């Protein structure tokens, strides 16, 4: 108990004084996850919009696959990326294993299906509303996709934030492909796992505080976004 309260006090002290190690790890976490979410969104949002406006025979299967990929266990993704990037794997020559790039690749694979699936659901509803008008106005498919992406931007931002939430809290995959190397690939979640294992509760708790704070900020953002979305005006 004493251990715990002392750890707690130290953790608060570390957060309050912006402990360099803590800041360093937090920034790396944000850098990896933000990059991954930006790349994933660039793939997933147009994909979601395209699936919403296009009718073709395999559409249902593509959506089913997307939903299945959403439930992919991150550890397995980590394993696959590891095999691909390892010295003997197909992309071994690139030397990416145990770098932040490898972690970004893994996170992109994990969150792209999630973002695409949420985006598709939101845009499908918007499309059913816009369908007649956009057909009547003789729009091209590109214009339809662009219009949906723009007019659905709030719902899409929510989708991206959901992806961010999933990516920033993920441990399994980035532990495997990043290796949790100090000052190189150590991020919030992997550091917490490590410090807890070492019995260094104060740093682990401090990191935990930061992670929880990020999660709360994220949820507030999603909440306020979906509230304005519900009024359906913009």
């Amino acid at each position: 108990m004493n251990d715990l309260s002392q750890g707690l006090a130290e953790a608060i002290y570390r957060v309050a004084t912006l402990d360099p190690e803590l800041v360093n790890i937090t920034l790396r976490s944000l850098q990896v996850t933000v990059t991954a979410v930006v790349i994933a969104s660039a793939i997933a949002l147009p994909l979601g919009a395209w699936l919403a406006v296009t009718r073709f025979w395999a559409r249902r299967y593509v959506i089913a696959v997307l939903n299945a990929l959403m439930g992919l266990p991150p550890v397995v993704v980590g394993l696959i990326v590891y095999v691909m990037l390892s010295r003997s794997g197909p992309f071994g020559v690139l030397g990416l294993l145990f770098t932040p790039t490898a972690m970004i690749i893994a996170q992109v694979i994990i969150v792209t299906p999630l973002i695409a699936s949420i985006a598709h659901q939101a845009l499908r509803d918007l499309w059913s509303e816009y369908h007649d008008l956009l057909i009547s106005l003789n729009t091209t498919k590109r214009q339809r996709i662009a219009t949906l992406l723009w007019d659905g931007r709030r719902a899409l931002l929510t989708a991206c934030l959901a992806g961010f939430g999933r990516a920033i809290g993920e441990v399994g995959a980035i532990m495997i492909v990043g290796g949790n190397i100090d000052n190189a690939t150590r991020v919030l979640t992997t550091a917490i796992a490590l410090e807890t294992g070492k019995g260094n509760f104060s740093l682990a708790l401090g990191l935990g505080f930061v992670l929880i704070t990020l999660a709360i900020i994220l949820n507030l953002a999603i909440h306020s976004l979906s509230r304005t979305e519900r009024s359906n005006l913009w």
Partner: protein
Amino acid sequence: MKRRGVQLIGPINLDLEADGLTIVLGPNGSGKTSLLRLMHGLERPATGTVNWAMPDSNARMHQAYVFQTPTMMRRSVTDCIAYALTVMGAKRADARRGAQDYAKRVGLGHVLDRPAGVLSGGEKQKLALARALIRQPQILFLDEPCANLDGRATREIETILSEVRAQGTRIVMATHDLGQARRLADDVLFMLSGVVHEQSAAGQFFATPQTATAKAFLGGQIVE
């Protein structure tokens, strides 16, 4: 036209002249909307074709359609109207300027920057009309464009429609307002249970309807 194997409207064999204003009349569910959508190419006929005397293979480019329940995009009134121009390749600034002109013309000058979604039912219909007019279509389809409008707005819209027709736009319009039909129509299509029951020049239709049902409809009686 069929949906889920059910014959909704037709068989219809119809020729329209190149200019003038056609009013489509008929009780609820008689197929007015379906007929307009079919002509605009929003629905495909189960058999047969819809042909336009236009060189362009893409007839919809020169047509505009005002829906019975207009779609409001998640944009401001100005941007909502301007959208109809920007998708045709107009510059955004030009489109916005044009949109404001047309918005003022239909009486939306005071709500230019409001989100389109908050407009009243009547204002939404005016917006839809402005969005159709701004494309300067050769053919304009209107599905009960004045259903939610007050008397004054209705008159204003009718004036605009007359102007547009005078400039050579072909108008096909469904309405329930017999007074409006009398005021505007060059010729009338009377629909009943999915078929064109009667097609005749306006004067003749209102003075001496050919069929008993049309007579009853004009007399305000219930027709099935």
